[in-house]
C-alpha cells in the first residue's frame, strides 16, 4: 500500500466568470521515501491538486470528488481534529513565496517551535532546542541567533530554508513542496535544491515536488507526473520521461527548456497559452496547441495508456503511461519528433555554438 494515494480527485473553484475545474480527475500515488515531481505550466492546477491533499483550498475552492488516502484513511472523510493532527505532523507543506509564509509579527523560531508544541508532547525548552537543531539542519548559519529573528530580517534564501525547517519540524512522512524555488535567485535556487536533494536522499520522507521547471525535476525526482489543464497527461520514471517523452505536451515542455549548446536562433515554444478551465477544449485538452493534432483529437478524449502496447494504465506507478490518441492508434500522421542525445565528444562543439548565440 502506498503512503499517499490520490484517486480521481476533482477540485473546483467558483469565480465570477464561472466554475473552474482546476483539477479534473487526477490519480497518483506516492510511496514512502520516494520523490515525485508534478510538472506543468502555471494554471494547470498543480497547486490546487497539492493543496487539496491537506484540504487547504481557500474559500472559493472545493474538492468535489475523489479520494485522498493517507496510510489507507481517506483524508476527505477525516474529522477536523483528525485532519489537524495530520497537518504539519504527518504531511507538511513547503510553500512558494517564503516571505509571506511566516507571520511577520512573530519570530521565525517561535513559529517553528509552535508547530512542534502543537503536535508533540514537549516542554517549551525542548521545542526550542529542537527548533535550533532544525534551523541548523537546513543550513542556516548561527541557528541560535536566527531563532529570535523576525522573518523580514532573513534573506529570501534563508527564509525558504526556514520554511523547510518549519515543514520538517515534526519529521513528516510526506513533504509537499509547492514551487519551492520560484522567485529565488539562481544561485539561491541551487542551494535550496541541494538541500531538498540531500533531504530526499537521506531521510525517509516522501516528497511531492510541484514545479513548472523540468530542470528541477530532473535533479530531484524519482518519478514525474505531467499535468495539463487539470489532467495528468503523462507519468513516467524520471529517466524515461527525459529520454523518451511520449506526450506531445511533454515534448513541447522539453523542447522549450533552454540549454547551453543550442544552435537555434530562438527557443522553440508551445504555441498558444494554457486553456481556459471554465470552458476547457473538447476531446484532448492539448489539441488546440498541439502541432500534431488531427480532427479526431477535438472529439475523442484520450486516457492514460501504455505507449508501447496501447493498453490502459495498469496502475503500477513505475510504468510509463501517456494520454495521447497516438498510442491507441487513432492518429494518421503520427508524432514526428526525435530525441537526440549528444555524448561527451560533442562538448567542444557545444562550446563553439554557445559563443554564436545571441545571448
Amino acid at each position, binding site marked *: 500500500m502506498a503512503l499517499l494515494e490520490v484517486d480521481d480527485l476533482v477540485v473546483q473553484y467558483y469565480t465570477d466568470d464561472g466554475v473552474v475545474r482546476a483539477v479534473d480527475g487526477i490519480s497518483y500515488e506516492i510511496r514512502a521515501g520516494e520523490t515525485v515531481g508534478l510538472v506543468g505550466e502555471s494554471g494547470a492546477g498543480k497547486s490546487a491538486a497539492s*493543496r487539496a491533499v*491537506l484540504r*487547504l483550498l*481557500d*474559500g472559493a475552492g472545493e474538492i468535489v470528488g475523489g479520494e485522498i488516502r493517507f496510510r489507507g484513511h481517506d483524508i476527505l472523510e477525516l474529522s*477536523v481534529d483528525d485532519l*489537524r*493532527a*495530520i*497537518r*504539519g*505532523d504527518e504531511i*507538511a*507543506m513547503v*510553500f512558494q*513565496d517564503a516571505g*509571506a*509564509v*511566516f*507571520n*511577520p*509579527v*512573530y519570530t521565525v523560531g517561535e513559529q517553528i517551535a*509552535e*508547530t512542534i508544541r*502543537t*503536535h508533540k508532547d514537549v516542554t517549551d525548552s525542548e521545542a526550542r532546542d529542537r527548533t535550533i537543531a532544525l534551523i541548523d539542519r537546513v543550513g542556516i548559519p548561527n541557528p541560535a541567533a536566527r531563532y529570535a529573528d*523576525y522573518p*523580514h530580517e532573513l534573506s529570501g534564501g534563508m527564509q525558504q530554508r526556514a*520554511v523547510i525547517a*518549519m515543514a520538517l*519540524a515534526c519529521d513528516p512522512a510526506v513533504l509537499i513542496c509547492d514551487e519551492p524555488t520560484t522567485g529565488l535567485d539562481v544561485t539561491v535556487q541551487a542551494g535550496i535544491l541541494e538541500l531538498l536533494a540531500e533531504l530526499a536522499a537521506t531521510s525517509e520522507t516522501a516528497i511531492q515536488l510541484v514545479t513548472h521547471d523540468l530542470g528541477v525535476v530532473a535533479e530531484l525526482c524519482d518519478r514525474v507526473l505531467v499535468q495539463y489543464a487539470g489532467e495528468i497527461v503523462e507519468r513516467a520514471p524520471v529517466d524515461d520521461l527525459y529520454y523518451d517523452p511520449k506526450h506531445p505536451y511533454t515534448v513541447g515542455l522539453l523542447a522549450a527548456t533552454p540549454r547551453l549548446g543550442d544552435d537555434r536562433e530562438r527557443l522553440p515554444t508551445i504555441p498558444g497559452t494554457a486553456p481556459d478551465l471554465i470552458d476547457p477544449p473538447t476531446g484532448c485538452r492539448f489539441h488546440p496547441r498541439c502541432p500534431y493534432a488531427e480532427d479526431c483529437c477535438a472529439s475523442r478524449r484520450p486516457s492514460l495508456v501504455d505507449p508501447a502496447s496501447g493498453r490502459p494504465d495498469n496502475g503500477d506507478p513505475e510504468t510509463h503511461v501517456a494520454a495521447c490518441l497516438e498510442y491507441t492508434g487513432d492518429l494518421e500522421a503520427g508524432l514526428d519528433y526525435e530525441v537526440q542525445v549528444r555524448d561527451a565528444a560533442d562538448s567542444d562543439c557545444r562550446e563553439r555554438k554557445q559563443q554564436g548565440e545571441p545571448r
Partner: protein
Amino acid sequence: MSLGRYVGRRLAITVPVLVGVTALTFSFVHLLPGDAVDAIVGFRDVSAETEAAIRAEYHLDQPVWDQYLLWLRDAITLEFGESPVTGRDVSATIGRRLPATLALGGAAWLLALAIGIPAGIVTAVSAGKPADEVGRLAALAGIATPNFWLGLILLFVFSVRLGWFRVLPPDAPLVSLATVKFLVLPTITLGTAAAALVMRLLRSSMRRELDAPYVTAARARGLPERTVILKHVLRNAFLPVVTVAGLQLAFLVDGAVVVEGIFSWPGMGRLLVRSILRRDYPVIQAIVLVIGIAIVLANLLVDIIYAILDPRIRY
C-alpha cells in the same frame, strides 16, 4: 534601527506639529474679525481700563511673534488668565471639567472596544453568512445614527418614560454609584458609533489577513483554528485598529461636544459649546489647545505602540 531611535525620530516629527498646533490656536483670536481686544471680550462694550488690562495681559502691544512666544510661555505654565465673560480662571475651569470628559470618553471607548472587537472577529470569520450581513448592517446603522438623536431617544425612553435613569447628573463626586449609573446612557450614546467603526475596521482588516499566505501556512502546520485566528490573524488585524486610535480619540471628542450637552454632563464639550454661544473666546482657545495637544500626543503614543507591535517598522 532600534526602537529607541525610532521613537526619537518620531518625537522629532512631533515637535513641528506641536508648534503648528499652538500657532494655529494662538492665531484664533487674531483671526476673529475686528480688533483682538474686541474678540477677547466677546464684542462687548468695556471700559478703557479693562481694555488696557487685556492689552497688557495678552501682550497685544508687542509684535505678533513676541505675543505668540509669551502666550506659549503662559500656556505651558497653564496660565490662561481669566475669562472676560465669567471672570473665572480659565485653567481652573478646564481643570474642573476635564475629569468629567475623560470619564465619559474613557467609558465610551471601553464600550466601543468591548462590542467592536468581538463583533469584528465574529463577522470576519463568518464572511458571507447571515451573521456577517447582520453585523454589517448593524455597524452601518450605528455609524449613520446621529449621536444627538440617539441621545435624545435614549433620554426619552429610559429617563422620561421608564424613569430608569436620572435626567440630570447627580451632584455626587465622579466616582460614585449615582454618577456611574447616570453615565450609562451618555456612554451608550457616545460609544455606539465608535463601536461600529472599530467593528468595521477590524472586520475588513481581518478579512484581508485571513487571505494571507501565512494563514494557510499556519493551518498547514496543524495549528488549531482558535490559535490561527486569535494568535496569528488577530495580532496582525489589530494593527490598523491601533493606528486609528488617534482618529478615534478625535471622534470621541466630537461626540462628547454634542452628547455632554444633551445629558447636561459637566465636561469640556459642554463648556466649549457654551463658550461659543456666549463668545467666551479665551476659554475656547484654551479648550482647543488642550484637545489639539492631546490628539498629537495620542498619535505619537499610537505610533510607538505600533512599532512595538509590528517588528517590520523598525528598519
